[in-house]
């Protein structure tokens, strides 16, 4: 993938590679490469190393404690980390709670929360979706009743990634019923240790646990933990859309999956099969298109232009391609995909027990990643965005 890198960019890449070599334990990189589940400590090990270097909040401007990287440097950093099998950075602190607190928070909130976010000293989770409020998030119903200096919160959040690891949750709650549902939403920061917060695990179809339900029963939240004004919560949440950028990590995950597919084909003597070669060619062309689209968005970002709705096209294709590669890998592995190696999947061992390593977790990975076309904005919603904002329907 050719990008015109300046000598400074090349030096930057060297710096990033050197950092990863020094700070990413080989055993952790192996777990990531093998699609095994990571522990809380696994994530913290990497994130806190980045934090010490000042690189965890890499999208923050310099005056907020970020490294002041250009759009190109951010892009390169993401690609190299994915290529070298660094754990994905949990986004809820640095990419969501942090920017919102910086933009809308009180001085106290900024002092209290931003530095721990920069250092990964506190773990954040996102209290947005509810059982009846998925794609239609504005219809959320978790209530917050003001009583003096406290909000009393009741309701249920769902699909809360890593809530079981989290110290804090940023939460959209309803403080009033208005003509438009968005108007009655307020943004609260909730201490996960508060009485009344109950986290229940949700198991995905591959047997792993990352999502949760968070039940909130008479949870008391000080008014000083409200970000922005009452009823300004939707505005806070929408602010993040203006910060949206194309994360180059997804391309990295796709390339990793593609390498696994090639390995599986070689090990099973299918790499020379003309049908496979033709299918692989199509996959590689689609990946090339995605990379070119990404570089185009990057060029816009470098010129200060925020990405537009065409980013939805990239999200759609990126999810499709990733899912297709995982599906094809299971096909190529055939019978070797059948045994379920729970201990390997959970990261309890590095040795597969029933099948060769190239196939041992192919099926669970395929099952689990059906979620990429659903979470963070379904493919259907992405299509609606293009339909409305690009095609003018």
């Amino acid at each position, binding site marked *: 993938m050719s990008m015109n890198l300046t000598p400074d960019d090349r030096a930057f890449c060297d710096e990033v590679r050197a950092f990863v070599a020094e700070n990413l334990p080989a055993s952790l990189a192996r777990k990531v490469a093998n699609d095994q589940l990571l522990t809380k400590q696994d994530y913290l090990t990497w994130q806190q190393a980045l934090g010490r270097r000042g690189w965890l909040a890499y999208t923050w401007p310099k005056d907020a404690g970020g490294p002041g990287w250009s759009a190109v440097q951010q892009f390169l950093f993401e690609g190299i980390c994915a290529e070298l099998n660094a754990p994905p950075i949990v986004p809820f602190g640095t990419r969501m709670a942090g920017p919102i607190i910086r933009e809308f928070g009180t001085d106290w909130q900024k002092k209290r929360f931003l530095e721990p976010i920069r250092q990964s000293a506190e773990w954040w989770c996102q209290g947005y979706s509810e059982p009846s409020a998925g794609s239609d998030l504005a219809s959320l119903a978790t209530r917050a009743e003001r009583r003096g200096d406290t909000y009393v919160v009741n309701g249920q959040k769902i699909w809360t990634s890593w809530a079981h690891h989290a110290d804090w949750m940023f939460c959209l709650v309803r403080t009033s019923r208005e003509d438009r549902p968005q108007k009655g939403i307020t943004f609260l920061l909730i201490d996960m240790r508060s009485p009344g917060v109950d986290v229940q695990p949700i198991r995905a179809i591959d047997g792993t646990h990352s999502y949760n339900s968070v039940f909130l029963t008479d949870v008391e939240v000080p008014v000083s933990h409200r970000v922005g004004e009452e009823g300004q919560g939707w505005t806070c949440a929408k602010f993040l859309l203006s910060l949206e950028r194309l994360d180059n990590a997804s391309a990295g995950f796709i390339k990793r999956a593609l390498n696994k597919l090639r390995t599986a084909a070689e090990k099973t003597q299918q790499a020379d099969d003309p049908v496979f070669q033709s299918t692989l060619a199509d996959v590689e062309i689609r990946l090339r298109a995605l990379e070119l689209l990404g570089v185009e968005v990057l060029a816009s970002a470098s010129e200060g232009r925020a990405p537009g709705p065409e980013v939805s096209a990239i999200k759609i294709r990126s999810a499709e391609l990733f899912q297709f590669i995982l599906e094809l890998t299971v096909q190529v592995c055939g019978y070797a*995909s059948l045994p379920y190696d729970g201990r390997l999947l959970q990261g309890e061992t590095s040795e597969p027990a029933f099948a060769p390593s190239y196939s041992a977790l192919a099926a669970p990975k395929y099952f689990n990643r059906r979620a990429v076309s659903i979470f963070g904005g379904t493919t259907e919603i992405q299509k609606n965005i293009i339909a409305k904002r690009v095609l003018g329907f």
Partner: protein
Amino acid sequence: MLNLMPAFTEEQSMLRDSVARFARERGGLDNRRQSSAEPHGFSAEGWQQFAENGWLAAIFPEALGGIGGGAEEMAIIMEVIGRGLLTEPYLASVVLGGKLVERLGSPAQANALLAPMIDGRTRLALAFVEPRSGYDLFRIDTTLKRSGSKRVLDGVKIAVLNGDTADTLLVTARTEEGPVVVIVPRDAAGVRIDGCATVDGLRGANIALSSVHIPDSHILGDPTRAIDALEYTIDLATAAVCAEAVGAMSELLTITTEYLKTRRQFGRALSDNQALQHRAVDMYVALHETRVLVVDAIRGFDERLVGDRKAAVSAAKAHTGAAARLIGQEAVQLHGAIGTTEDCIVGHYFKRLTAIDLLFGNRTWQLRRFSKARLQQGPGR
């Protein structure tokens, strides 16, 4: 949309009704969880019911203690297994094990192995997949060799369906004269069974065989007929999982359609979106196109010429694989986030359909075999 495998006779209708009753009571997600947690991966009591109701006898000739049915009865049972997400090892023990014994075994061997199996007292498993075999039934590295006055079996088998707890293994091996099938009791010296759960919630095993002594009486039937018998058995098992998939896909379509009508976002039902209605329609069309190919492969299974049989089975399986992928993936996607959780039955159907596509030849392999079979059939067919 019930009962897509046809019942042509009154007995077949009664069979279908009784198996469907079993599935209504013992199928579904909670039952599946319980069954998967059982020591053998299925309910011993459920298997006894299979035996008592004569379902284990359905496809064997009366002379061997069966009821005289065939592929049609098998398809009726398998469709219900698919619909109900049942975990009983009918495919492994009755079809893969039992039918091979019936086709290849001597009368004495058939009686000895089938009678207790039909009674529900013992179970069979067929070990024919190897680490390097892919889908080639006759790429066999496991050897049966003479060692002095004995014969010994050496090799490794993988993906032995329900091989973790079967009483008797039927193992394919290579000799100088060609492939053979040998009978191996699970506790024979030199047999190591590594049982595991499979990704679709069922059970399997890897089996290592080290100098296992095989007496002459344990070579199944006349080895010169082994190739035909094995091909027949795998073709039958392929047709069986196609029928199972039709049942599963039909349930998924029903569940998904219902969900689209009841789930509301943005002030309206999901089904108010024409785009989503059409996707459900696509699932329906794929299902019914697959159904007729599966029914065609099942009808007259025993009467067909081998080349015709291979073409019909591969056609059914290739299409089943493609439909299973579409319907499984769409069912999950149309359910949104809940479709990705273990608490929703949709994901479990999706996983089983994924596994079925991998069994006995995935869709790419089946297309190739169909091509070869058609070439052999020649023009004008």
